[in-house]
């Protein structure tokens, strides 16, 4: 006969679940509202989403307070794990979402935003990502990853352009493959250690001195491939530009930030102990992946004729740049990862949002794609403010001081120097120089060429509403004055990361 299970509510520590449950409740609420009374305007759903995101933020702040007071919190049969990494990444996830969701308030009536399901899916997706970062249980990571990914596939497909279906299908098949890899890798680790919890795996493997090295490597390869897909590391990146191109610009911007930070956290938890275990082979593989991702993506970005694809490749390159933090694996580099991703999030989201407000509902005949470079020719004459802001985002992405991303790059390269990776630091610096070229290309088009297609400045703000302008203004101000905020943010990040033991 089975023993009755007695669980006290306190030992479950349900508070650890609160940040994930809030968006899920929000999503359910949106679905219920739609069932009761259909045909309501999207503004309602946008506002509900924002409210729940704010509640979510409150819950994260609550857990953050407990963490700083008492250290890592475990909950729900020790499945949930709230530490500094979880808190920081959830802050980034929710913060970026707060910047993203108001972008739905366009005055053009785009297809995807007319569905309430879009917002429900969005909140489900957030819940999934939050699950991923707040656990070290491989199964729950997998569940969170798949919840988020399935929602994301559907959101991409809702964008009513031919390419978006292609993008969704491509993303889905690649994602399914990655899921298979991930579960296989997890299986190998379970077979080796009898556990699916990363800290247990680390303890057992460390205990027997990595006796079954061959199997460990098999597991690592599969997990790395799975995470590589999600992070769009070269050579698993091939879906990324097409998917970004097929999605709406704002969603592409979102995809370049939020899913990646979630996967970075998983990678950090997974590879940190492996790298410090002295497995030279893994270090070499990661080193190669990092360098190749940075460099190749940069080179491909050079030859793009569409700004959105250029930004897609540049996002891949940035992901490789940040992956270096995990390779270096010091407290400074892990802090640098968060700092980089925070400044990257509003700069990149700002850049993609600029594409979003210049999106036209119907493409004119002479324009082959939504955002060809030619479209931006001479923008300084027709829409000077928009051109200046776009130029600002480009300079920031290129890492020109004193704009936001420079400080991220500075701290990241510094962590490479400090960690003894001087050559890597040089490669990172030179890659920034290569990247300078394609960001500069857009600036050259905007500022130095004559307008060729449109004498009409209206196209650049075709889709602009006050909320969109506000978001972009916020991103621009953040990009310019980031240096004022770097010190408190850095201290906060470093304290949390250090306290989590990374």
């Amino acid at each position: 006969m089975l023993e009755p299970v007695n669980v006290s509510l306190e030992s479950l520590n349900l508070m650890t679940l609160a940040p994930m449950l809030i968006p899920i409740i929000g999503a359910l609420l949106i679905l219920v509202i739609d069932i009761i009374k259909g045909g309501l305007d999207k503004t309602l759903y946008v506002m509900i989403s924002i409210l729940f995101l704010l509640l979510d933020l409150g819950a994260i702040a609550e857990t953050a307070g407990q963490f700083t007071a008492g250290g890592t919190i475990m909950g729900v049969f020790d499945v949930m794990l709230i530490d500094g990494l979880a808190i920081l990444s959830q802050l980034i996830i929710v913060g970026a979402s707060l910047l993203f969701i108001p972008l739905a308030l366009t005055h053009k009536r785009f297809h995807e935003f007319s569905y309430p399901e879009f917002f429900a899916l969005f909140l489900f997706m957030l819940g999934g990502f939050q699950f991923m970062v707040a656990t070290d249980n491989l199964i729950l990571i997998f569940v969170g990853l798949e919840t988020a990914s399935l929602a994301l596939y559907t959101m991409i497909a809702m964008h009513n352009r031919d390419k978006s279906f292609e993008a969704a299908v491509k993303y889905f098949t690649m994602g399914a493959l990655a899921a298979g890899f991930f579960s296989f890798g997890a299986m190998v680790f379970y077979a080796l250690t009898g556990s699916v919890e990363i800290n247990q795996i680390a303890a057992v493997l460390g205990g027997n001195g990595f006796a079954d090295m061959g199997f460990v490597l098999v597991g690592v390869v599969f997990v790395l491939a799975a995470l590589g897909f999600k992070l769009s590391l070269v050579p698993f990146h091939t879906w990324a530009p097409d998917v970004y191109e097929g999605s709406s610009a704002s969603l592409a911007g979102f995809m370049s930030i939020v899913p990646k930070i979630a996967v970075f956290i998983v990678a950090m938890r997974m590879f940190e102990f492996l790298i410090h275990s002295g497995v030279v082979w893994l270090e070499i593989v990661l080193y190669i992946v990092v360098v190749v991702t940075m460099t190749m993506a940069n080179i491909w970005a050079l030859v793009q004729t569409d700004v959105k694809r250029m930004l897609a490749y540049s996002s891949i390159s940035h992901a490789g740049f940040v992956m270096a933090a995990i390779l270096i694996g010091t407290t400074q580099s892990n802090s640098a990862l968060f700092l980089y991703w925070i400044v990257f999030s509003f700069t990149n989201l700002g850049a993609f949002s600029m594409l979003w407000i210049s999106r036209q509902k119907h493409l004119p005949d002479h324009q082959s794609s939504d955002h060809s470079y030619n479209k931006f020719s001479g923008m300084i004459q027709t829409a000077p403010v928009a051109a200046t802001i776009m130029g600002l985002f480009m300079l920031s992405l290129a890492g020109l001081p004193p704009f936001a991303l420079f400080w991220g790059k500075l701290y990241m390269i510094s962590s490479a120097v400090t960690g003894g990776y001087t050559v890597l630091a040089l490669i990172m610096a030179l890659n920034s120089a290569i990247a300078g070229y394609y960001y500069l290309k857009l600036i050259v088009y905007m500022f130095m060429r004559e307008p060729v297609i449109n004498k009409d400045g209206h196209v650049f703000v075709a889709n602009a509403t006050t909320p969109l302008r506000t978001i972009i203004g916020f991103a621009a101000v953040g990009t310019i004055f980031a240096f004022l905020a770097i010190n408190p943010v850095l201290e906060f990040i470093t304290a949390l990361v250090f306290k989590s033991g990374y």
Partner: protein
Amino acid sequence: MLDNILSILIFFPAVAGIFGFAVQKDSIRAYGVSVAFIEFALSLMLWFSFDSNVSGMQFIETLPLIPSFGINYILGVDGISLFIIILAAFFTLIGIASLTDTKDVKNMIITLLFLQMTMVGVFVALDAIVFYVFWELSLVPMLYIIGAWGGPLRIYASVKFFLYTFTGSLVMLVGMLFMAYFYYQATGTWSFAILDWYRLILPETFQLWLFVAFFFGFAIKVPMFPFHTWLPYAHGQAPTIGSVILAAILLKMGTYAFIRFSLPMFPDAAVFFMFPIAVLAIIMIVYTAMVAYAQEDVKQVVAYSSVSHMGVIILGTFALNVEGITGSIFLMIAHGVVSGALFLLVGVIYDRRHTKMMSEFGGLASVMPRFATIFGIMMMASVGLPLTINFVGEFLSLLGFYQQSHILTLLAGLAIIVGAIYMLAAYKKMFFGEVTNEKNRNLPDVNKRELIALVPLVIITVWLGIYPKPLLGPINNSVESVVQLMHDKSITDEAKSRIPNLIDGVKITRTSAQEAH
């Protein structure tokens, strides 16, 4: 007010530039001149309140920026940077006053004011990251000036200019980060403050690597041979004002940074690389002089001659003694004045004929006598005629290097003489003889506005050529402390013997010599 004068000097033009957007188009020129004039007056005020007897930093301002990572907003000025700041303010004023481009003049003036912010920022920053911020930021307005107002190849030229310097400075950034890390290892705290770094004594191997990393950033900016290839394009395509600012100020960032960073921080590496760099500098002097001789475009002649003279500055810098470094700093000012003036003069002729080809001209002396006179004076100064400003700098630079190597100095001296040929040849082609081209017959001579810009330059050229002491005093003072620091910090015997020790040697004899006067 003088407590914050450096911050005011940096940010006043930028803030004024932002207000400039609200000024009507036909009044913007007056606005720009007023702002630049106030800035120039402020920089003169800095000079007057500068204490020439103090060799260290003055007017220091400190403000925490990212203290947990050792980045602070630190400003200060010494004899080495003082006159370059004044030069920057002066040339912005002259540049705006003489502005003849009519297209989009409002954007041009606002861009120039932003450029001024970055230039002043570079020369007063005492924190490596703040320095780097202004150093990189200066690329943006210059990119825009070349790319929006330049010649037919302007986009290529501007992008090349940007990418070359951007790449070099990123390598330098890695060096800076390593330096800060080294400081962290030595002391346990992070610091990017230059004065903190001065106190570090680095092992020789580290010095060599760091020297090379910084060298990339600086050498591309100077530009030293073989990194100079962006410069002819940039000059060739830039509008007159762009060339003037580029030659007069922006190039000086590189040579200034050598003295501010490379020499006092890596004295042993500086000695180690002294002869290779001197050889590069001599190649720079000879090679670019020969290239200049082959040019048909007068602006390119001036551009290459500008590179050639930068070689002398480098040579003086790497003499690693007081005479050489003082000479090279003086020559930076002199080169700024003279080559800036020459570019302005080329601009004058370009405005009238819209060509810079020397074959189009001839016998201009009879048509435009005043122009020919000013051009002649400036050309003589460029050649290094005694009693002109360039002579003082070149003489001191060579005198300095003579103590390190007689033969190389002799070569450089000969090269300068040979280099004079192209200037005289160019002058001959353009000004002497009969008027060969009918279009030149009725060219108007320099007008009032151009005279307002040019005459002060002529006066400075001659005045400081005859009486350089007001500048040499403060420069010398600061340079002595740099050289002494280098001597004290150096660890190899080679460096100890190459870098003079001023305390128990030269300095005492100098003061006694002065007393004997």
